[in-house]
């Protein structure tokens, strides 16, 4: 018998299906906080991961990005093709990611993207390939990630975010990356060290 058929036969042999439902418990599926509180909660939670948070009016995103780059001494900034033109800095070199190869990505000082949505309660940004988020390698190889989050993209709870991402997955099948702070390890005596393999610096620009 083929492995597939044998494993399925073993499963059917082992267990008799019951009619238990899969999801009876009443956990929170929708947040109760007023929407105007979400940006502050999100900012507080992102900061707890030792990411840098900048607040800015919607029209001033470019200036915030430029100052973040200046502070990080970033001179070459990668951006996804569909990143809004009004976010792109003018004071440094902007490299559009039209299928850059890995050494080219490695040559960037940083990357600027938007996001699909963000979760306030956990301080999480969700990148969903394309749609301003860029492909996965673009936000992975460079050492600095600047991510613009618009206030109306922030939901309160994880289940709210997952419900929306379920639609994205069913409609587009795009890969998703949930980012909560810069990369980190606690493998050495449980001392947290930020910055291992992913971007060692994460700057979140909240545009309100």
């Amino acid at each position: 018998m083929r492995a597939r058929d044998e494993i399925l036969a073993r499963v059917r042999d082992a267990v008799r299906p019951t009619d238990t439902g899969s999801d009876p418990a009443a956990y929170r599926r929708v947040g109760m906080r007023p929407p105007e509180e979400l940006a502050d909660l999100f900012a507080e939670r992102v900061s707890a991961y030792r990411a840098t948070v900048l607040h800015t009016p919607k029209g001033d995103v470019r200036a915030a990005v430029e100052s973040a780059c200046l502070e990080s001494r970033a001179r070459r900034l990668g951006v996804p093709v569909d990143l809004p033109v009004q976010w792109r800095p003018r004071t440094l070199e902007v490299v559009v990611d039209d299928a850059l190869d890995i050494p080219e990505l490695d040559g960037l000082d940083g990357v600027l993207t938007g996001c699909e949505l963000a979760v306030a309660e956990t301080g999480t940004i969700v990148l969903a390939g394309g749609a301003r988020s860029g492909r996965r390698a673009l936000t992975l190889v460079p050492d600095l990630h600047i991510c613009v989050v618009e206030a109306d993209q922030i939901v309160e709870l994880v289940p709210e975010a997952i419900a929306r991402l379920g639609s994205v997955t069913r409609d587009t099948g795009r890969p998703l990356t949930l980012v909560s702070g810069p990369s980190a390890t606690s493998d050495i005596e449980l001392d947290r060290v930020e910055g291992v393999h992913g971007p060692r610096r994460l700057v979140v620009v909240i545009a309100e």
Partner: protein
Amino acid sequence: MSDTKAFARAAAKELANTQLRANLYRATHTIRAKRAAAVSELPDWEELREAGRAIKQHVLEHLDRYLLEFEQALTAAGGHVHWARDAAEANAIVARVVKAARADEAVKVKSLTTDEIGLNEALEAAGIHALETDFAELILQLDGDTPSHILVPAIHRNRTEIRDLFRRTIAGPELGDDPRELAAAARRYLRERFLRAKVGISGANFGIAETGTIVVVESEGNGRMCTTLPHILISVLGIEKLLPRFEDLGVFLQLLPRSSTGERMNPYTSLWTGVTPGDGPKELHVVLLDNGRTRVLSDAKGRQALACIRCSACLNVCPVYERAGGHAYESVYPGPIGAILTPQLADLAGGTASLPYASSLCGACYDVCPVKIRIPEVLLHLRGRVVAEKIGRADPERAGLETLAAIFADRNRYERAQRLGRVLRRSRIRAAAARLPGPLRDWMQARDLPDVPPQSFRDWWRSEKQ
């Protein structure tokens, strides 16, 4: 033949290592406190646990349906699905895919499932080097050591030991022991290997039946590197890792990080649904692994062990784990969950029959389990199975307990035994037992004889009535 003393022997050796015990104490207590804080923040934690339990039970009871649904969805999204009855079959599939890509190296994300099947050793034998990229796993691989904790596998190593190891292997003699410096050394060593890798190998935390999505939860970014940059990605998935619907992640992505690292969310979670042109691997393979899982499934009481999401919260609260450490379990899955999962996967063979006894049955593991696995219940159930296997064989413990049962069943015998006990008195029995060879001495080592009171209740009752 089963060996019910293996854990005790291994633990005795580990207990003598004071460095290990100091590391473990600090680590388990630190994570415990972090977890408690992260969990107390959520008003609906108990509802989430109940949802997690119910979803997992539902999946296990309808596993054939969800396996087929997952296979169909993933194939439609451009992935290749392989099925493996056991470790050898899984390892052969992975080796074949790597060889077909003409690669002799693969970068690997930490995965207990691939440790369970001995994938690295099997690939090495096929001329393929599987490079561990998780910081702790790299430490262990460089030193030929094995993991001792699910989440922090090198928990038994301190910074000086790691520094010395790195100086010998991947860094120069000027390397210091600051964790920041050590992490930077690992980054330098692994970076070019990530950037040139052709093949990545991962496990998976969850597979979504509805969409064919695979989910990997991590902290360091090595998982993103391994699952994004190579052309070919192979993920080995235990068949119990499926969730029915994408929305179920709303439960598990809250339960797992808070139980595991005590964070609101881990730094990176990667989800991919088949192949996406221009983004990530061009070829995607998933190996669905049985390797004893269907056997566990056939035990109605023991099967709840398959609901485990590998958070390791039960290790951190376990008084036995805290003292004995992970190596004493002689298994990829240590701690309370290992004590019920390992023996079942191995059908109680060899030393795994000792693991159900590696517990004081205090129940702390159940209290922290994010999917409410009733670990003490399964431990007792498995002890019962171990004992049942001994029926018909000469066994002193069994004979002793049967004698005791006969004494307790009859009033005259019981009262005679009480009188005999008072005559012999505690100290003399103890001294005699300690001199005895073999089983009785073992038995007495972990048990105290209660004081025999000078007068029993029955004697007192009689004297009062007169």
